[in-house]
């Protein structure tokens, strides 16, 4: 089910406004949601603007290609993303090796403009293109026993210099609780700015979970497994005191070595001030109910 969530961030500054409004109406018309689209357009004054394509594609954490922020842009060109195959296994009705096209066939891609908050206390706003993860999971069929979704990234020493150096254990793995995975905000992104996903951003397909720290949004996915037990997650395995399984953006729970109360939006130059970090990265209304009754200090 596409369009279960409406963008509240604006892209008016990067696309001429008339064209952008126009496109909205076309999309809205197609989905028969004219009234809601009008409300969406009215909301588009939040004052948040997406980062430039240049910022989004030049400042990345993708340790498979090195630990420096510019390393992925420099080194990720070597990765081969076509053909791309994704193994779907575990507690699903239709396990198997899917090509990217097979996995996405019949699903509706849409644009989602999301805040992106890194655990290192910087942030961006990114106009992603992708499909809801829920649609993919529904398509492969979720067995009733499934409680979690595990993901695995490509780890190819031939094309990935960071994998050769073993800067952290590879392959990179991540996981979500099934209800988090099925949430309308959770998408599998295949592009940004209406262009194919650049390699340094996790081509050809990556997870985006906007209310969690960026490292949960695993890149260049080659395997999706539904499990009954909580799956391992790379940073959590490395330093469980610093990186919890949930890793929801939370200004009140500091990383042991730095505060999470504020963040700096990338792209503001040398005199760019910090801004306050929002609970669940600004998606509290949408996702807080997933964690009702949980102690978020303990389950960080």
């Amino acid at each position, binding site marked *: 089910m596409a369009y279960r969530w409406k963008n509240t961030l604006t892209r008016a500054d990067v696309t001429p406004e008339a064209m952008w409004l126009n496109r909205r109406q076309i999309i809205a018309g197609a989905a028969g949601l004219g009234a809601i689209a009008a409300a969406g357009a009215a909301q588009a004054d939040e004052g948040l603007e997406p*980062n430039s394509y*240049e*910022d989004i594609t*030049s*400042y990345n954490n993708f*340790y498979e290609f090195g*630990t420096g*922020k*510019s390393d992925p842009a420099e080194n990720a060109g070597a990765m081969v993303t076509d053909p791309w195959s994704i193994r779907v296994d575990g507690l699903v009705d239709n396990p198997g090796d899917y090509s990217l096209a097979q996995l996405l066939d019949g699903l509706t891609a849409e644009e989602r403009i999301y805040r992106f908050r890194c655990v*290192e206390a*910087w942030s961006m706003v990114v106009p992603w293109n992708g499909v809801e993860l829920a649609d993919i999971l529904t398509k492969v069929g979720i067995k009733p026993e499934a409680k979690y979704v595990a993901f695995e990234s490509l780890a190819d020493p031939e094309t990935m210099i960071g994998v050769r*150096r073993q*800067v*952290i254990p590879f392959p990179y793995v991540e996981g979500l609780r099934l209800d988090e995975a099925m949430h309308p905000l959770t998408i599998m992104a295949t592009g940004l700015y209406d262009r194919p996903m650049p390699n340094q951003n996790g081509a050809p397909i990556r997870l985006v979970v906007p209310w969690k720290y960026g490292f949960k949004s695993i890149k260049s996915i080659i395997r999706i497994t539904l499990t009954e037990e909580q799956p391992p997650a790379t940073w959590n395995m*490395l330093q469980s005191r610093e990186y919890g399984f949930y890793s929801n953006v939370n200004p009140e729970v500091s990383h042991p*070595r*730095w*505060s999470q109360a*504020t963040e*700096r939006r*990338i*792209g503001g*130059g*040398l*005199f*760019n*001030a*910090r801004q306050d970090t929002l609970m669940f990265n600004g998606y509290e209304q949408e996702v807080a109910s997933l964690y009702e009754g949980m102690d978020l200090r303990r389950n960080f």
Partner: protein
Amino acid sequence: MMAFVDTANRQLRRVPAWTIYIAGAAWAGWLFWLGLTGGLGAEPINALERAYGEVGLKLLVVTLAVTPLRRFLGLNLIKFRRALGLTAFFFVMAHFLVWAVLDVHSLSRVWADIVKRPYVTIGMAAFLMLIPLTLTSNDQSLRRMGGAAWRKLHKLTYPVSLLVIVHYIWLTKGFPYEPLAYGAVIVVLLATRIRRFLPAKAA
């Protein structure tokens, strides 16, 4: 090797020590300019902070290498040592200022970080320990203190260099090899100061 060292020593005799200050100031200014004009990437504050810190660390390593280089290779850089040490301090101060003024941006948060974040506490301690060394890096202080006391004070460089490495390792995510490589070099340079490893002094 000896021929090379002799040539180097002869050439270096012609280079005045103040060129180090000029080069240091120019380099710091250039990095700042790059930060202003987009040359340091999408997040120039962090990049500039790191760049100043790293130049400071490199100069600290070079300063620590002066004595072993002379003792083991006969390469004489002594006349540059003060300029190298002072320039190292200036970069560490620039590193601190970018952090406090541009990065953390508020006095209360600066203080909170110093108190609460161990790697900041350690970096701050190293910075403070460098201040008396900087203030006494002049002929007058050397004369007033006397050589023995002055040398004793300036051995603070050793713990400072170890604190700097702990600071660097502690602030990184994962296990990148750069801080560990710097750490290894510093440990080797400090080990050359342990008396029993030294070659017998020539009469």
